[in-house]
Each structure stands twice: as structure tokens, then as C-alpha cells.
């Protein structure tokens, strides 16, 4: 057979692109995400993201709940990092009411938020590894480590996942007796475990081959898509609200902001690993300098902010979480908009997915670390 006849055969072979539905029930869509993927062989030609399978209308609910009553609902937004949502919401209301909280409350909030960041990144990284096909072991290691933090939170506020701990003007409880000792132990326990996780992934040739150069997001695109959080920093933008617009008492702590270079899945993973270490550093400093005082508030009174509006954004584990609250002077918010980080982070997926293999779609999605409750609200 001559070479030219092979060419003619190639021309005559009829190939067809086809659509594959991933989700809403699919093991690697992190919940109920629905992706329509157009494939040519194994290569992705087009990808359409459908969301809304977990749209619970929380913004509508907010208009019918008092300010205190809404706190439990914030837990259910980004359920992997519920404390971060709690914090963002109460800060927004405090900003609306121009209220200052006590120093101890600020410190405890920082400690809790940073521990939550560690817990959240543990889940994020290990589910990412699970998506890459490392079946169950890294995921279960991540959950085993996270369990320590969850048990601490259980001790502090009485629930494992939906904490409802922050209050407008302070906290529900002070730390229980012996909590600072426990937190110190967690820091001691967590550091070698993070190293372990890193040696399980970072040096692993298969993991590197799967992630390096996959789904690279350039600096400009990341900013233009309003990608935030670790995903933005992985693209090389040194932007962290904890440093650039410090809230609470983040300006008192010394920490680095890890950034990536290429913005690929590897960088996104690496930034998260590094952020966990920095968070532990912040917790260590905060627990060392924990001031005395009463972080709790007298609750039960009805909160009625003056008519007005406030927009508060915080650095939640997944990115910038913004609460836009409009008050009409009554006990109920007039309008509440939750600008969730995962929503904007996910929008970039269809851009990143074009031209890569179907296995890489899962990889990119895992590295973006989305939570459907956060996206659909």
C-alpha cells in the first residue's frame, strides 16, 4: 500500500463528534454539576456548563429572615468552609451597622477562619487527587486530617459541619477550656501530615505528568473572568484580601502569599498546599497572642440596621466571598446578594477545557475546587 492510498483512506473514513453528558450525578463533578462535553475521540471540542441543580433560593430566603436567623443559612452555602461564610456574613452586617467587635473575638475569628481554610484545602486537594484517579486513599487521608479540625469545631460550637458560630457583634461562645492546647496540638499534628500529602503527590511522577501544563489560565484571563482566591494566585497575581484589604486583625500577622507561575492545575494545587502552611502560621501567631476579654455578645435583641447598603468581601478558602446587603431599616434585609467565589471560578472552565483530553476536564475541574452549594446558592 502506498502512502498516498493511506491518505485517501484517511479522507474517506467518516468520523463523528459526539456529546457526552457528565452529571448531574457523576462521581467527579463535586456534587450536582452538569457538563455537556462535545468530544472528538478523546479530545474536548466544546464544553457547556449547566448549573442550578442545587439552587435553593437562599437570596430569597434572606429577605424573609431576620439578620440573626440568616446565619444558619450561610453555613449551607459553602458547606466545606462554613465558618468562612459565617464570617463573611457577620462582617458584612457589622459593616452595615458600623459595629466593632472585641479584640478577643477578632483573634478567635481569625483562628477559626484559618483552621477552616486548612480543612477546606485538605478536602480540595484530596478530592482533586481522587479525580485524577488516586482512588480513595488520598481522599481518606485528607478527611482523616480534616476530622481533627472538625472535632475541634464540634467541641467549640457543637456541630460538625454547620457551625452557626459567628454572631453579629461577636461570637456565640468563648473558646472552651483547653481549646488553645488542642489548637496547638492540631498545628503540631498537621504540619508533618501536610508534608506527607505533599510527598504523596508533589514528587509523584504520575501526578506531575497529569497536572503540569494542564488547564493553564493566564494572568489576564484570570482577572478578566474575575477568578479569585488560590486559583487567581496560581496564575501569578499576588492578590490576597487578607493582605491587600485587611479585615479583622490580619494586618498584625506575618504570613506569605504563595503564588504560581503558569496558572495550571499543578500551580493551583501547589498554592493550596502552601496556603495551608501559611494558615497554620497565622493560627500559631494568633493563638500565641490571644488577648483576654469577652468575645460573646448579648444576643436575642432584634438587629435593626439603619437603611443603607454595605458590601463586604472576605478571603474565603475558595476565593473572594462578597455579601451585598441592602437594608430598609427593618429587621429583615431588603436584598442580599451573595457574590460567591466558586461561581466565577467555574465560569472559566469552558474556556480552559477546549482542546484538552476528557480526562483533563476532570483534572481542571478538580483543581478549580468548586462547591456546588456555593455556586448555586
Amino acid at each position: 500500500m502506498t502512502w498516498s492510498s493511506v491518505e485517501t483512506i484517511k479522507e474517506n473514513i467518516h468520523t463523528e463528534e459526539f456529546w457526552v453528558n457528565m452529571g448531574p450525578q457523576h462521581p467527579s463533578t463535586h456534587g450536582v454539576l452538569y457538563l455537556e462535553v462535545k468530544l472528538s475521540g478523546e479530545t474536548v471540542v466544546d464544553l457547556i456548563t449547566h448549573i442550578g441543580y442545587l439552587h435553593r433560593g437562599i437570596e430569597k430566603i434572606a429577605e424573609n429572615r431576620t439578620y440573626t436567623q440568616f446565619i444558619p443559612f450561610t453555613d449551607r452555602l459553602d458547606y466545606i468552609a462554613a465558618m468562612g461564610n459565617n464570617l463573611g456574613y457577620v462582617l458584612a452586617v457589622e459593616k452595615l451597622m458600623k459595629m466593632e467587635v472585641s479584640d478577643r473575638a477578632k483573634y478567635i475569628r481569625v483562628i477559626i477562619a484559618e483552621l477552616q481554610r486548612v480543612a477546606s484545602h485538605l478536602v480540595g486537594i484530596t478530592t482533586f487527587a481522587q479525580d485524577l484517579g488516586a482512588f480513595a486513599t488520598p481522599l481518606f487521608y485528607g478527611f482523616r486530617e480534616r476530622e481533627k479540625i472538625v472535632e475541634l469545631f464540634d467541641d467549640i460550637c457543637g456541630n460538625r459541619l454547620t457551625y452557626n458560630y459567628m454572631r453579629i457583634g461577636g461570637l456565640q461562645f468563648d473558646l472552651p477550656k483547653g481549646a488553645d492546647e488542642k489548637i496547638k496540638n492540631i498545628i503540631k499534628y498537621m504540619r508533618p501530615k501536610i508534608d506527607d500529602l505533599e510527598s504523596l503527590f508533589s514528587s509523584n511522577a504520575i501526578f506531575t505528568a497529569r497536572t503540569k501544563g494542564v488547564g493553564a489560565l493566564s494572568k489576564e484571563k484570570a482577572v478578566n473572568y474575575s477568578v479569585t482566591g488560590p486559583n487567581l494566585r496560581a496564575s501569578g497575581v499576588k492578590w490576597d484580601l487578607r493582605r491587600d484589604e485587611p479585615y479583622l486583625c490580619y494586618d498584625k500577622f506575618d504570613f506569605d502569599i504563595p503564588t504560581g507561575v503558569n496558572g495550571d492545575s499543578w500551580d493551583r494545587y501547589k498554592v493550596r498546599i502552601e496556603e495551608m502552611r501559611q494558615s497554620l502560621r497565622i493560627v500559631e501567631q494568633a493563638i500565641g497572642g490571644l488577648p483576654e476579654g469577652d468575645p460573646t455578645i448579648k444576643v436575642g435583641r432584634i438587629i435593626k440596621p439603619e437603611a443603607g447598603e454595605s458590601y463586604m468581601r472576605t478571603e474565603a478558602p475558595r476565593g473572594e466571598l462578597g455579601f451585598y446587603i441592602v437594608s430598609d431599616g427593618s429587621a429583615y434585609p431588603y436584598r442580599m446578594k451573595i457574590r460567591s467565589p466558586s461561581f466565577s471560578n467555574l465560569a472559566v472552565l469552558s474556556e480552559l477545557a477546549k482542546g484538552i483530553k476528557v480526562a483533563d476536564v476532570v483534572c481542571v475541574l478538580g483543581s478549580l475546587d468548586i462547591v456546588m452549594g456555593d455556586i448555586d446558592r
Partner: protein
Amino acid sequence: MIKYFINIVAGAISLMKGLFVTFKNLFSKAVTVQYPTQKLQMTERYRGLVDLRIEKCIKCYMCVKICPTACLALAHKETAEKKKEFVYFKYNMELCCFCGLCDQVCPTQAIYLNQIYEIAVYGRDKLRDIDLLNTEKYGEWAHPTVK
């Protein structure tokens, strides 16, 4: 050509590191709590089911007002001696979100969240309209029989 072999060897070494981590864990002690035979102690602040210390309640309706899911229903009447008396105090566990706001807002610590956490039922009616005034309401859940 040399680089080709270096890559292969480096890759193999990197995989060994991962294997070493799992190997370490293979012989470390399991962290599992074997649930039905071993049980974790619930923390002091644990938020279980809503419970009531009947004699302490002053019928101020704070808990009913603060509840984000409207799972509490309370009604009272006044007796001849100007004393408040319960008509009913119902708790709908189906709607409850175990947020603890009622516990926190109660001025006399009458309503609180107990330590019960093992609840599973075959029918929903057991979860609805639980009479908080009945002291035996959580009887079977307070002491579950699990083999």
C-alpha cells in the same frame, strides 16, 4: 539519551516516595471508632435534639420567634391566678436545623439541645409534632439498642 534514563529513574524514585507514605500508614494504627460497640462522647456543647425543662419555661416565645425554620409551635393560656399554662408546645424535627439559636436566646435555659444523636425512623410521622411537654418523648432514641 542520558536524560531519558535519568527521567525514568527519577520517576521511579518519586513513585517510591508515594509508596513509602502509604506503607507507613499500612502499619499504623487504625483511627476508626467502631461505632455500635465503641461510641464517641458527645461534647458538652453538642447540639442534639431540642428538649425542654418544663418547669423553667416562662412562655416568653423568644425561641419560637428566633427559630429560622419555624419548627417550634407554642401556645399558652392564662389561668385564674394569672399564671401561664401550656396549651401545647410542639417541635417539628423534620424542619429543625439544629442551629441552637433557641437554646442561646432562652432567658431561663428552659429550652436546650440535648445529647441524643442516634435517630433513624421508618416513617416520618414520628418526627412531626413531637410533644415537648412529654418527658418520655425521646425514649427509644435516648437509649438505642444497637447490636
